[in-house]
């Protein structure tokens, strides 16, 4: 890991297009300003960790039949599925 000492108001530049500026340090917290091209996503690391874990869990999940059945029921209730054929008429 590259370690650089910066004070409030100072910046680092990553790869010509990304600039990270230390705006303020206060009580153990650091406020950062980040300028990056819109294509570059900037997220808090712990949020990304949560999403990564959720993706992994979903990939390993078992797609339970019961969950699918209940979703199917929901779908039918919303009318996106053709109504069931009427049964034979009782005489």
């Amino acid at each position, binding site marked *: 890991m590259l370690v650089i000492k910066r004070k409030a108001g100072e910046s680092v530049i990553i790869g010509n297009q990304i600039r990270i500026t230390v705006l303020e340090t206060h009580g153990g917290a650091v406020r950062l300003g980040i300028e990056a091209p*819109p*294509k*570059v*996503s900037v*997220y*808090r690391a712990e*949020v*990304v960790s*949560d*999403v*990564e*874990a*959720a*993706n*992994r*869990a*979903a*990939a390993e*999940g*078992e*797609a*339970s039949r*019961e*969950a*699918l059945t*209940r*979703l*199917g029921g*929901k*779908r039918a209730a*919303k009318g996106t599925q053709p109504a069931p054929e009427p049964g034979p008429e009782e005489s």
Partner: protein
Amino acid sequence: MHIESPHFGKLAFDPDQVLEFPEGLLGFPALSRFLRVGPEDYEPIEFLVPVDEPKLRFPVLSPYLVRPEYDLPVGMAEREALDLAEDGSLMVFCVANLTSRVEDATLNLLAPILVNPDNRRGRQVVLETSGYSVAEPLFAGDPKPA
């Protein structure tokens, strides 16, 4: 072309059916090509199957099926990353975790997957300020089954 999936068997596909995720999915940066597989008996769940690692599959679902009010702001970053036209349509999926106990099944509303159908380019985004979580109960608010 085809891949062999342990879940769905042989999946034949044309190159122009492949969804391209230049950044991969979060946690899976190396997986950049996916097939969208919708076996009839899994409806309305579909699966994103990585072409380069077909033993995996990500169950996905339209968030609007379970949360019609789902609020999805699509910013400039996403428009540019997906090369989305101003009036272009957008496909939205959320990853579902379908647990063996149905009450525990969840949907990741925090990090939806967006796909531009015109160029098949996709990206998973994180709606950091949305208040949604990665594990919203799939069946929250449903009446108890009779």
